[in-house]
């Protein structure tokens, strides 16, 4: 909300929460704020939240939070409408930020084939679906809250700042930072494809805390050194770990593309491996 708008009215900021194509996990994370949900409804004028309410009013908004990828003409039209009537538009969750797992084949360009594989030759009476893309492929996105799903506390911090008219603070460090604080043993040295070095932090390295390698579900961190990660997994001989196995480039790419979406596809496109065939 701009300072001018704030002066004009002491009304609560108008907020809308929407879902395009996805698992609704980010909206669910908001509903999962059991101890804060009454405060959220007290601090913001929640005009629309289809997953939780039926008396929704679709008008001008100070803040729109949008989950999900654009995967149908309906999604695209809805997103464009939300953008037109919102001062600030925030992508919440991996699908909205990067395209999500449904964009895992973004590099393959085979959406029509895959659609036929699942649905057969049926002629749909509803509009043709679209290959999954993040919100930024169609409209201007002001901020992103990453994650699969979003982290409850990161969301509450962002919303707290937004209702006071401040900008949310994005996390700019990778999962490894939190993993080091948690004193985990590095899983890269245990011959696991761990995506912690290139994945945006904020999850408290939860998977590695459980001995499970990072699957990259929060998407690429700002300035992710994707070439470095790939090089390390595919080509590295580490003097201290002679038993390290090197991975096939395709396997590393598959892993990075699980949650990296179109953002990771662009980053991987720029990777030039020394001596290895791409």
């Amino acid at each position, binding site marked *: 909300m701009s300072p001018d708008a704030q002066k004009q009215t002491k009304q609560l900021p108008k907020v809308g929460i929407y879902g395009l194509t996805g698992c609704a*996990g980010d909206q669910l994370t908001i509903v999962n704020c059991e*101890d804060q949900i009454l405060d959220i409804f007290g601090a913001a004028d929640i005009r629309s939240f*289809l*997953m939780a309410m*039926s008396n929704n009013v679709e008008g001008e908004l100070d803040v729109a939070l949008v989950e999900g990828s654009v995967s149908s003409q309906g999604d695209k039209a809805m997103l464009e409408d939300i953008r037109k009537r919102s001062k600030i538009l925030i992508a919440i969750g991996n699908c909205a930020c990067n395209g999500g797992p449904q964009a895992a084949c973004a590099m393959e360009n085979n*959406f029509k084939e895959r659609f036929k594989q*699942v649905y*057969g030759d049926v002629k749909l009476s509803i509009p043709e679906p679209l290959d999954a893309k993040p919100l930024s492929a169609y409209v201007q996105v002001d901020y992103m809250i990453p994650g699969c799903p979003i982290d409850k506390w990161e969301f509450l911090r962002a919303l707290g700042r937004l209702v006071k008219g401040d900008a949310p603070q994005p996390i700019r460090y990778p999962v490894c930072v939190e993993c080091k604080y948690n004193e985990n043993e590095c899983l890269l040295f245990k011959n696991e494809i761990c995506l912690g070095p290139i994945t945006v932090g904020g999850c408290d390295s939860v998977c590695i805390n*459980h001995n499970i390698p990072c*699957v990259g579900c929060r998407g690429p961190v700002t300035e992710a050194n994707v070439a470095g990660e790939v090089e390390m997994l595919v080509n590295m001989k580490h003097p201290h770990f002679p038993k390290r196995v090197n991975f096939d480039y395709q396997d590393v790419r598959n892993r990075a593309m699980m949650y990296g979406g179109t953002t990771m596809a662009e980053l991987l496109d720029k990777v030039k491996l020394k001596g290895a065939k791409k």
Partner: protein
Amino acid sequence: MKEIKVEHLARVEGHGAISVEIEGKKVTNVKFEVLEGPRLFETITLGKTPLENLSVVPRICAICTLSHKTASIRGLEKCLGVDAPEKAHLMRELMMAGEAIESHALHVYLLALPDLLGYPNAIAMVGKYPEAVIQGLTLKKFGNSVMELCSGRATHGENPTIGGFGKYPTNEQLYAIKDQVDTLIPYAKDVVDILGSMKYPEFYEKETVFACCNPPNNEYGLIADEIILSDGQKFDCEDYKKITNERVVPHSYAKRSLYKGAPFTVGSLARINNLGSRLKGEAGEMYEKYKSPRWKKNPMFNNLAQAIELLYALEKIPELVDRLVELKDPPLAKPTRSSGKGTGAVEAPRGTLYHSYEVKDGRMAKVDIITPTAQNYEDIEKYFRLAAEHMVAEGWKDDEIRFQLEMIARAYDPCISCSAHLVKVVRK
């Protein structure tokens, strides 16, 4: 021609629309449209590793993420010849109970009760029904805490894996969960009584077929390899296609299922109808107190069935904890082969969920996932039609028709993300 349409079904997960076409006093067409864009999950993991498949497929649905996880693990363990240790099986039951509590509390208190008490949402109920809202949120939070403890986080946790768990909770953590149950059981009993004394409309009642997992040893439960139908037939879950018979309809991105050419219902009401007599404890007493032949005919009773299951899941937790604390943390069971076929079936909160796989040389070769809502669509449309025909003949107003149909849809607790938004009435 006139069309009554609910464009965006509220208080459900995902995008659905309901449309009813009317000519004069006759209903000519009823459609439950799923407008959630297709995500083609069954193609995403082909050629990738079983562990990659296991990470991605629970992202189909946030609410039943752990049901997807468990079904996927069970299918993949069959493919790879993995014999998971007892502690892993008990942990899977524990996390499924946590998910049932979270999902049922969310639906019963926050999504369905507002309909039944005449409010647009649960927050608006706080003034008159503060206890119900607070108790619902407390139960939901408890369910989430169980899911978090078992899987690493409330949604899409990665701790459950092939052959066991990355890390097991400590006995202190398990006892902390068990200690909360006693205060929560009276909440669940109260909501069973609220829903049990509710009056539901009779005009669309019609008997249907129910399907659910059939746990061994005559027990009530959420995980099994055998499927039981209310007509007495039993199937191995590997033969799931004989029950589900998926087909594509032109007005929806969601596939549909028919059993012997007729629609059927899965979910809490199916489990309570098929297995309710096996319930013990307070859940068993509540089942006996309210059981009714109308349960076989009216989907609105799914709300009551969920409340009884809420009680069942709460009572199950201390039992599981007592067994878990006796067992040492086992290492992950290893795959004994790299190729094979297998199907995992579980009872997700909304019904039977199948994950059927084929793995060849350590890569996913075939992925088939049948979700509960996909199986329920045909029956939801059937009840829409029965209700709409009566309401149109009786001259109900469009808004009243719309509201009734939305209530039927919400009673099914449809998880549209899983298959793929809501009610339109067209008058010609």
